[in-house]
């Protein structure tokens, strides 16, 4: 349940965007937030999340900011990724969401 479409960024890297529905029971609460930020931190790419395709965008590598998004179950989570390993990063974070952060 994600549509990946690439759009040209102003920098040398392509910005990738995709979205996925939060399937795990309590949404993006503390534990999933930690898992998401840990995953995001393992990539060099800039990774941002939002509840709307137009933002506001939140740094997915900041556990405090990710928890403040308070995304509930059933919410569409949008990703915006820019960087050399952006494709792998996007695949990894989408897999986490689809997998319900291992707790669905």
């Amino acid at each position, binding site marked *: 349940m994600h549509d990946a479409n690439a759009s040209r960024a102003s920098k040398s890297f392509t910005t990738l965007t995709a979205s996925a529905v939060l399937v795990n029971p309590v949404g993006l609460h*503390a*534990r999933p937030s*930690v898992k998401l*930020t*840990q995953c995001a*931190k*393992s990539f060099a790419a800039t990774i941002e999340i939002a509840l709307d395709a137009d933002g506001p965008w939140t740094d997915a*590598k*900041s*556990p*405090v*900011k990710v928890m403040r998004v308070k995304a509930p179950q059933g919410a569409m989570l949008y990703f915006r990724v820019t960087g050399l390993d952006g494709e792998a990063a996007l695949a990894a974070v989408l897999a986490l969401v689809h997998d319900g952060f291992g707790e669905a």
Partner: protein
Amino acid sequence: MSNSESGNVGIVIVSHSAKIAEGAADMVRQMVGNAVPLAWTGGDPEGGLGTNVAGILKAIEIAWSSAGVAILVDLGGAETNSEMAVEMLAEDRRGRVVICNAPVVEGAVIAATESSGGSSLSAVQRSAEEFYA
């Protein structure tokens, strides 16, 4: 409490209550995992509520990492006793220990999350302190 030498910033939890300190450490272990050196201390030597410098020094020793140690404290004495413990450390270690201005439970989880990604001591502190930002 066993700690692998991961090179990640160590986390020390200091509360007046041993139960709170231990519970916060449990949350860190379960939510963040084992990649972060972690220790907790709480209560006075008689088993009552309070904090003590010797306990804090021991916790810093257990959680020690070459990358440094971030301490999360609850109220008053936890902070002043932690400051005292830091002052008593060997000179080469003193500069690599920070006391975070953050809530003890949430700060510990966030600091450990930041540390588990290999972040520096200053990044770990900054992330934990975002709670009050």
